[in-house]
């Protein structure tokens, strides 16, 4: 199956419904659409935040996400996948990133979106800095994210691979 795959890293906001519509338009085999949108929350550990600033590794971010999108298309029969990840300063209530997956059947759409999110969290070179009243700090990686990503890996999901 040929999968329509789009990965964009951008500063601008995105429209998840428009991205989903692009993938289903003129496709009579699309039966299931899953979207995930990550939103900047207004607090972290109970403390209000003013904004997040997302730093990324240009070039590598696209390459890593594209690699995982290709892996998702290999594992599940997908009609389309779109991943958009923003960088720069993002205020509470604004969208941070989105994934859309389209398939004929719901299990493929759900599992591939979940898979992509787990890998984005742990493998895509993005770092979040949080602005609070007391200053800025870097968000720490969560062990639960590594554990979630490990669900998909036959080797137990070591986050690095030897070169």
């Amino acid at each position: 199956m040929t999968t329509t795959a789009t990965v964009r890293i951008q500063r601008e906001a995105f429209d998840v419904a428009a991205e989903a519509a692009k993938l289903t338009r003129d496709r009579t085999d699309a039966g299931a659409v899953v979207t995930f949108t990550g939103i900047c929350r207004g607090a972290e550990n109970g403390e209000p935040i003013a904004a997040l600033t997302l730093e990324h590794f240009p070039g590598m971010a696209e390459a890593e996400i594209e690699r995982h999108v290709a892996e998702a298309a290999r594992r599940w029969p997908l009609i389309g996948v779109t991943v958009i990840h923003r960088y720069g300063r993002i205020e509470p209530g604004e969208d941070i990133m989105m994934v859309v997956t389209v398939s004929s059947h719901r299990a493929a759409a759900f599992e591939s979106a979940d898979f992509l999110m787990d890998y984005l969290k742990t493998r895509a070179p993005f770092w979040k800095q949080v602005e609070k009243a007391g200053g800025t700090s870097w968000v720490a990686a969560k062990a639960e994210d590594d554990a979630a990503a490990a669900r998909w890996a036959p080797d137990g999901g070591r986050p690095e691979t030897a070169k």
Partner: protein
Amino acid sequence: MSKITLRYFAWVRERIGKADEEIEVPAGIATIGDVMTWLASRGEEYAYAFENPKVIRAAIDRAHVKPQAVIAGAREIAFFPPMTGG
């Protein structure tokens, strides 16, 4: 000896005080782990950035690698904290 571009991100970048640099890696520096140990010896800011090398992730030519990865042939090496995108 070979010229390599080093790139730093997030708090690794902040501690070192620069985003990238071109560097001559001395002979005998074979792996990513060796590079981190060597960099840590180059000054206070590097020592601070690499004070806990276990938490630092690395990429050679934009692919994730382990500390034992061999750097021979690398044009670019990046060091950064665990990722927190998504």
